[in-house]
C-alpha cells in the first residue's frame, strides 16, 4: 500500500468520523428524548455502549490480524494487531469509567461486583493488559508470534464473558438490547446507531493514523541507518 493511498484513506475516514461525532453529540444532547426514569444521566448510554461495542470490534480486528500474521508472517498484520489491541484497551478503560459514572447515578455506587458483565469486562481489560506485558518480555519474531497467539486466545474470552452473564442470571445491569429488539423508542435507537458508527469510525481513524506513524518511523530508521553507513 502506498503512503499516498494511506493518507487519502485517513483523510476520508477522519473527516467522516469528525462529522459523525459532531452529529452524534448534537443529536444525543439536543434531539434525542430524555429518559423518563433516569433523566439526563441516561445520555451516557449512547457513549458507554458505543465505545463498548467499538472496543470489541477493536479486539476482533486484533484477533483477525493475529491470525493473518500467523499465516503470512507479514509485519503489517502485527502492526494492525498491536494497534487494535491497544485501542481496544483504551476504549475498554473508557467503558469502565462511563459505566462507573452511570452506576453511581443509577444505583448509588461506583462499582457493582454482583454484575458479571461489568466484572468480566474488567477481566477482559486485565487480559489485554497482559498482552503488552507478554509483548515486552519477548523479543524478535517470537514477540510478534506470541502476541498474535495471545490476541487470539484473549478474544476467545470475550464471548465467554457475555455467556457468563446468562449463566449467573444477574439482572443488575440494564439489558437494553434483547432478542426481542431494543428496549427503547426508535428516536433513541437512531441516535444510538449514529453514536455507534462514530465510535467505530474513531477506532478506524486512530488505527489508520497509528499505522501511518509506525510505517513512517520504520522508514525513518532505515534512512538513518543508510545515512550512517554512507557517512562511515
Amino acid at each position: 500500500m502506498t503512503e499516498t493511498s494511506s493518507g487519502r484513506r485517513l483523510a476520508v475516514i477522519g473527516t467522516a468520523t469528525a462529522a459523525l461525532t459532531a452529529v452524534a453529540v448534537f443529536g444525543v444532547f439536543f434531539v434525542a428524548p430524555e429518559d423518563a426514569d433516569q433523566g439526563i444521566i441516561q445520555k451516557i448510554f449512547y457513549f458507554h455502549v458505543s465505545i463498548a461495542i467499538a472496543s470489541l470490534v477493536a479486539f476482533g480486528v486484533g484477533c483477525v490480524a493475529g491470525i493473518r500474521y500467523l499465516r503470512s508472517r507479514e509485519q503489517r498484520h502485527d502492526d494492525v494487531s498491536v494497534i487494535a489491541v491497544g485501542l481496544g484497551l483504551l476504549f475498554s478503560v473508557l467503558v469502565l469509567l462511563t459505566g462507573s459514572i452511570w452506576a453511581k447515578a443509577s444505583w448509588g455506587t461506583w462499582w457493582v461486583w454482583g454484575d458479571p458483565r461489568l466484572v468480566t469486562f474488567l477481566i477482559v481489560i486485565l487480559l489485554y493488559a497482559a498482552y503488552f506485558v507478554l509483548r515486552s518480555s519477548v523479543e524478535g519474531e517470537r514477540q510478534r508470534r506470541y502476541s498474535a497467539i495471545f490476541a487470539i486466545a484473549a478474544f476467545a474470552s470475550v464471548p465467554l464473558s457475555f455467556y457468563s452473564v446468562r449463566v449467573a442470571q444477574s439482572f443488575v445491569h440494564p439489558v437494553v438490547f434483547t432478542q426481542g429488539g431494543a428496549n427503547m423508542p426508535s428516536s433513541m435507537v437512531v441516535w444510538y446507531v449514529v453514536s455507534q458508527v462514530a465510535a467505530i469510525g474513531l477506532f478506524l481513524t486512530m488505527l489508520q493514523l497509528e499505522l501511518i506513524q509506525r510505517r513512517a518511523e520504520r522508514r525513518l530508521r532505515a534512512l538513518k541507518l543508510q545515512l550512517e553507513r554512507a557517512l562511515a
Partner: protein
Amino acid sequence: MSVRAARQFRALLVKDLRLELQTRETAVAMVLFAVAAMVIFQFAIGTRTDETTPFAGGILWATLALTAVLGVGRSYVPEREQGVLDGLLVAPVSRMTLLVSKAVAIASYMLAVEVVAVPLAGIFFVEGPFFADLGLLLVVCLLANAGIGILGALFGSMSLFSRARELVLPVLFLPSIVPVVIAAAGATHAIAGVSNDMAEYRGFCLFLGIYALVFGLVAYATYPYVFDD
C-alpha cells in the same frame, strides 16, 4: 488420535508423572501452598464472619487458582532447566501430543491437590452437612481442571521463552482463568452445605465445559506456532 500418537502421549505423560513421583516436589509444594492459602483466607475473611459457608466455594477456587499458577510454573522446570524441551522438539512428536500430555499432567497435579484441598475446605468453611454430593464436586473439579490444564500448557510454553517468566506466567494465566474460578465457585456453592440448587449447578458446569472446549480449540489452532522456529 493414531496409535503412534497415543503411545507418544502416554510416554510423555508417564515422563511427567514419574518425575513427580520420584521427587514429589510439585504436588507436595502445591498442597502445602493450598493449605497455607486457605489458612490466610480464614484469617482474612473467616474471622470477620460467623457464617463462612457462602464463601467456601469462592475460597476453595481462589486457592486452587493460585495453586495452579505454582503448578504450571513447576511443571515446565524439566523442559527449561534440564534440556528436555530441546529433545522433545527434535523428536518426531506432534505439537498437539506435547500440548495434550502437558495439559493432562497439569490437570493431574490439580486433582492431587483437590483430593486434599476440597475436604479441607469443607471442614474449615462449610457448616452443617458437608458438600451434598462429592461426586458432583468431582465433576466440577474435572471440568475446571480441563480448562486450567489447557491454558496452563499453552501459556506455560509461551512463558518458557520470555524474560522474567515467573512474573509473566501469573499475569497471563490468572486473568484467563477468572471465568473458571467464577463458574467453579458458583457450582461448588450450589451444592455446598444445605443448599442444593441443581439448575444453578448445571449452568455453571455447562459454562466450565464450554470454556474448556473453546480454549481447547484455541490451543489446538495456535499451539503449533509456539515452537515454530
